């Protein structure tokens, strides 16, 4: 039995701001930009919400499926730390706007930036179990950023958007190594979203928990899988990326602990095995629940997969505050690159409109109210025509137009 990722796409908004512009606008110490290893952050606009981001990520995946395959999507799981309602899932709206079959389970999961990986693993197990041969599952990690100057150095690292992961028996993008995984979880308050309008974060505690969980997950993985050597088993690594510099620290730690290689000698290995996974995250920021899948897209689009005989093994690490985490693995090959190419992710990211600091600051207040429940609200999408006009978008996008009696309303924007 094989199972894994059949198709994959990300949506990272239509606007971005250079990290340097943001540092200068906020008066942050620009010497610290190097540590972040980031060039841009994606910026959501007030008509974008967890539903529109999810649909805009998944639509190209669903559109490429033939009708018979689409009718076999039996499970839709949205993973988000940007929930819209205590009862109704984001997935219920996504199911509607993607036109998915009525014969489909619809559910939402939550565990900060980790939940999508729990959903992917449950979906892979469902497909691999053989209880419904030919079934497919669609997992969509989707979030919005609630960040402004209060976030200090976290603000430039915070991204927004979604990743859509189609799971099935023909894993063209990533063949998951069934049974090869390691987990580590415990309760901690390193970051959280206690209200719909702001995040709390203890950056030291969160980074420490991320690194601590990484070592423990890898230990658990190693205890389940024979003959694992951190330095040689994995051709590439793709990790949850709060900011690219964090992944560099994580790699350094694993090299020191599990390969006995001191930091000074880890650089070449980092460049070869990890850097391809950071190209997209370094121009998007932390995609939250979808972060590790953005890193995987980056890896597939930037690694030299054509030259590898028999494919390349990727080690993946997912971490979510609170906290829960997983190290798992899978195989990619030239077919992965061919399956991902039609999504044109590089072009999508290049096409985002660059915002000035003033434009950026002007959209933040409305973004902070995106998740606040309001009985009736109108979002004036035309107010952002100038930004939309400067972005290169070659497809229709779903936009949130407000709420009517608590029911969120959407339209397809013909760009």
């Amino acid at each position, binding site marked *: 039995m094989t199972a894994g990722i059949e198709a994959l796409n990300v949506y990272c908004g239509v606007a971005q701001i250079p990290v340097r512009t943001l540092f200068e606008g906020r008066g942050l110490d620009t010497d610290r930009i190097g540590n972040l290893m980031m060039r841009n952050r994606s910026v959501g606009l007030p008509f974008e919400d967890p539903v529109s981001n999810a649909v805009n990520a998944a639509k190209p995946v669903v559109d490429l499926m033939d009708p018979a395959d689409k009718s076999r999507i039996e499970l839709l799981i949205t993973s988000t730390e940007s929930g819209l309602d205590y009862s109704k899932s984001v997935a219920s709206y996504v199911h509607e706007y993607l036109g998915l079959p009525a014969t489909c389970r619809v559910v939402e999961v939550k565990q900060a930036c980790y939940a999508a990986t729990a959903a992917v693993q449950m979906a892979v197990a469902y497909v691999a179990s053989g209880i419904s041969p030919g079934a497919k599952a669609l997992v969509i990690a989707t979030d919005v950023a609630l960040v402004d100057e209060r976030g200090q150095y976290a603000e430039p690292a915070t991204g927004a958007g979604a990743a859509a992961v189609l799971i099935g028996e023909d894993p063209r993008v990533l063949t998951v190594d069934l049974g090869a995984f390691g987990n580590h979880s*415990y309760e901690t308050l*390193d970051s959280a979203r206690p209200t719909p309008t702001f995040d709390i974060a203890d*950056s*030291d505690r969160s*980074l*420490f*928990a991320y*690194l*601590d969980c990484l070592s423990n997950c890898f230990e658990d993985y190693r205890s389940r899988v024979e003959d694992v050597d951190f330095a040689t088993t994995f051709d590439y690594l793709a990790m949850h990326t709060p900011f690219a510099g964090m992944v560099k620290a994580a790699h350094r*730690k694993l090299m020191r602990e599990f390969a006995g290689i001191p930091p000074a000698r880890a650089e070449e290995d980092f460049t070869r095995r990890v850097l391809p996974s950071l190209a997209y995250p370094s121009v998007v920021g932390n995609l939250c629940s979808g972060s590790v899948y953005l890193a995987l897209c980056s890896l597939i689009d930037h690694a030299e997969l054509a030259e590898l005989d028999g494919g390349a093994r990727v080690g993946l690490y997912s971490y979510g505050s609170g906290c829960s985490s997983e190290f798992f693995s899978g195989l990619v090959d030239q077919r992965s690159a061919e399956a991902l190419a039609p999504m044109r992710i590089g072009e999508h990211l290049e096409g985002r409109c660059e915002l000035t600091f003033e434009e950026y600051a002007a959209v933040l207040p409305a973004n902070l109210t995106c998740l606040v429940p309001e009985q009736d609200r109108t979002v004036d999408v035309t107010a952002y025509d100038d930004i939309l006009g400067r972005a290169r978008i070659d497809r229709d996008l779903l936009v949130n137009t407000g709420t009517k009696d608590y029911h969120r309303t959407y339209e397809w924007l013909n760009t």
Partner: protein
Amino acid sequence: MTMNEDDIFTTVKTNVLAVLPDLDPDQVTMHGTLTDLGANSVDRADVVTMTMEDLGLVIPISEFQEVHDIASLVALLKRHS
């Protein structure tokens, strides 16, 4: 076995200098903070994990909440040694 404070401080100092090689060793004292020495959050996590590794200690993350300077870091490590 309980380690003495001086040995723990020496291990912390060695790792601070490994993470921040441009520092003058005399700048690293019990009374300073890692932030004041120029350590960013990744550097601080590196110092703490490398020191725990060197000392063979495993300490729950929640306990680091009370750590504000090098002296309180040394005290926490000593309690678990």
